[in-house]
């Protein structure tokens, strides 16, 4: 994917530090402030705000670390392109797999076991099991219901 540049030319000094002394401590301070901000979200309790701040700030922090600490701003372009392509592949994988794994029903199919796990009764039930501190897998209780609801097979198979 990355056609290497023609015969290397020395415009790119080996040492990065020499370019300009970015004040790393300042960047670090900004990152801590962003971390603090992202922590306010759960305190407020408004779900959308929490999600927005948490992930928005995570992206900003990631950008700053990549740019200033990993010196991607003065790295050769094909390296940045390579990393972005890998991220793009992951989003491609997410988008193509979501209709089957994220959603639990589709054209001519429905995911019975996942659907039963979602219904509130299962959650309430799980809370009960957890209060008892025995770590019975929560999904298990819901499973037999799934089997019965879907294939009401005659006793032969059980």
């Amino acid at each position, binding site marked *: 994917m990355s056609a290497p540049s023609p015969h290397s030319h020395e415009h790119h000094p080996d040492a990065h530090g020499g370019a300009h002394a970015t004040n790393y401590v300042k960047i670090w301070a900004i990152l801590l402030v962003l971390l603090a901000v992202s922590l306010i979200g759960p305190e407020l309790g408004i779900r959308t705000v929490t999600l927005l701040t948490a992930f928005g700030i995570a992206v900003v922090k990631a950008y700053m670390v990549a740019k200033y600490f990993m010196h991607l701003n003065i790295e050769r372009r094909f390296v940045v392109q390579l990393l972005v392509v890998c991220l793009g592949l992951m989003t491609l994988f997410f988008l193509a797999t979501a209709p089957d794994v994220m959603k639990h029903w589709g054209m*001519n199919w429905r995911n*019975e076991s*996942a659907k039963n796990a979602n219904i509130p009764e299962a959650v309430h039930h799980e809370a009960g099991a957890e209060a008892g501190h025995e770590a019975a897998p929560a999904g298990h209780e819901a499973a037999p219901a799934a*089997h019965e609801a879907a*294939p009401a097979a005659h006793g032969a*198979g059980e």
Partner: protein
Amino acid sequence: MLEHYMQQGSSYASQIDGLVWMVLLMTGFWFFLVQGALFYLLWRYRARPGHKAVYLDDAAEHAFEVKWIEIPHRVILICDVAVIIGAITVWSDIKLSAPKHDEVIRVVAQQWAWTFTHAGPDGELDTADDIVAIDEMHLQVGKTYSYELGAKDVLHAFSVPVFRLKQDAIPGRVITGWFKPTLVGEFDVQCAEICGIGHGIMPARLYVETPEAHAAWLANPTHYLAYKF
């Protein structure tokens, strides 16, 4: 091409066979054309004393490419578009559409047997008169059936070659589809997804009967057949 080897037992079997014919004609044409060109070039430019290879510089290569490679390349693109259109129409007719069904049949695959729950005389599933048969499926010719496919343990695949029907059964999922038998007879049902050591020994028999024979079967169903082997 397929009907020579496997009869067409369902309404959409001919559509799939038609698509296979189209792809066969197109790919056959290109295959023999390209092989012919290759063997001709090998014969024509074989090493002979006094014969020297020609040197095509970029300009000559480009000219050759435009004439001999771009044109076939575009025609292949057109063939591909035709194949895509054919494939999507056939796929949509079979897997995406769900025509009004006369009866529903529930198919459950498990490690190494098929369980078919027929709707019984009243034509409704989950009623008292349901008929459950092991490794036996009785259908009436000409009736449009919808199937509910589930699996108990591992992945299986409900495959009826004569219907050109194949759909994986996934534990935890119920997958629906339809078919309409058009050929009376006794056919095979195979498992098309590896499901453990018994994958090869879980055949089921499919009986497509005339309305009278089907009614007779409904009257005294031969279900609960013991395992044959």
